[in-house]
């Protein structure tokens, strides 16, 4: 994977946005992604899915970040 500061920054921002959404879902503050189903459990599963996506975004961000040896 080619190193790229811009791509790394985009993935970090994406991860931050996903973490914020995950926290809001976990707290039950927002629910626009879920229309039906059981209340708390459903929000929690969405929060977990968003947190996993955030983690994956951070992994990709770290992967595309230029390393000191490449600078």
């Amino acid at each position, binding site marked *: 994977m080619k190193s790229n500061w811009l791509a790394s920054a985009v993935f970090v921002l994406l991860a931050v946005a996903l973490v914020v959404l995950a926290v809001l879902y976990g707290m039950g503050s927002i629910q626009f992604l879920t229309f039906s*189903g059981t209340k708390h459990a*459903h929000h929690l599963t969405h929060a977990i899915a968003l947190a996993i996506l955030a983690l*994956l*975004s951070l992994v*990709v961000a770290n*992967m595309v970040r230029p390393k000191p040896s490449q600078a």
Partner: protein
Amino acid sequence: MTPLQALFLGLLQGSSELFPVSSLGHAIVVPSLLHWSYRPTAPTFLPFLVLLHLGTATALVVLYRAEWWTIVTAFVRAALRGRVESSPERLSMLLVVGTIPAGIVGLVLQKPLTALFGSPRAAATFLVVNGGVLFGAELLRRRDERRRALQGQPPIEREAAFADIGELDYKAAILIGLCQALALFPGISRSGATMAGGLVAGLRHEQAVRFALLLAAPVIAAAGLLEVPKLFAEPGPLGAELGAAAAAALAAYASGRFLVRYFRIGRLWPFAWYSVVLGAGSLAVLR
């Protein structure tokens, strides 16, 4: 729903999930064509769909079990090191960057789109669109073959001129991942959209189906797991449903194996025609 209907739907879902013909479109259109009395979008039907999806995801993981083990371990190695050093590590990262956009779009838009377009006529219309997407991908491939002067060559040699997954770049993986999101419209096939994306990105048919099936497993599994709480929220007998899930798993496994063999030299044309004929026929019949 009778046990026989459940079994039929299990087989239908398992086979149509991996074939590029839209399982959700079939789950909505076929019961209406058969005048079955339940609504596939009803909340009581959801736990059943969850089980079918989990069955299909299990089949996908079993189909590529050795490869998945390699991919997962390669991903962990590359993530800890912060650098990609081998082909399996690169493949794992391609799958991750392809899954992120599909996951986000799926989480945000699945419910609204299913609610908006969950009617049999809408699903039939999107089945026609699905056929159009498959036709379009094959026509673009045919144009590519003309440009490379491959027409008239044996199918195997024609296919060999195109790329395998290892040559895919990350932008293409993201775009193919976004193609998966088209499957949120009931009637558009997930595997069809990702295969079309793969072909447009220059993959061989066999590699496009392999990437589509690998990319589908985490999304289908996650979609199923997200809905697991509904299994416990909606009371009801589980015997027939579990049997249907097993049938879905077997059908998905068999259709996955068939597709991998078929696309060594096969094309998307039959699936495109099937989608158009089923969609247009359903539109004519469903009033």
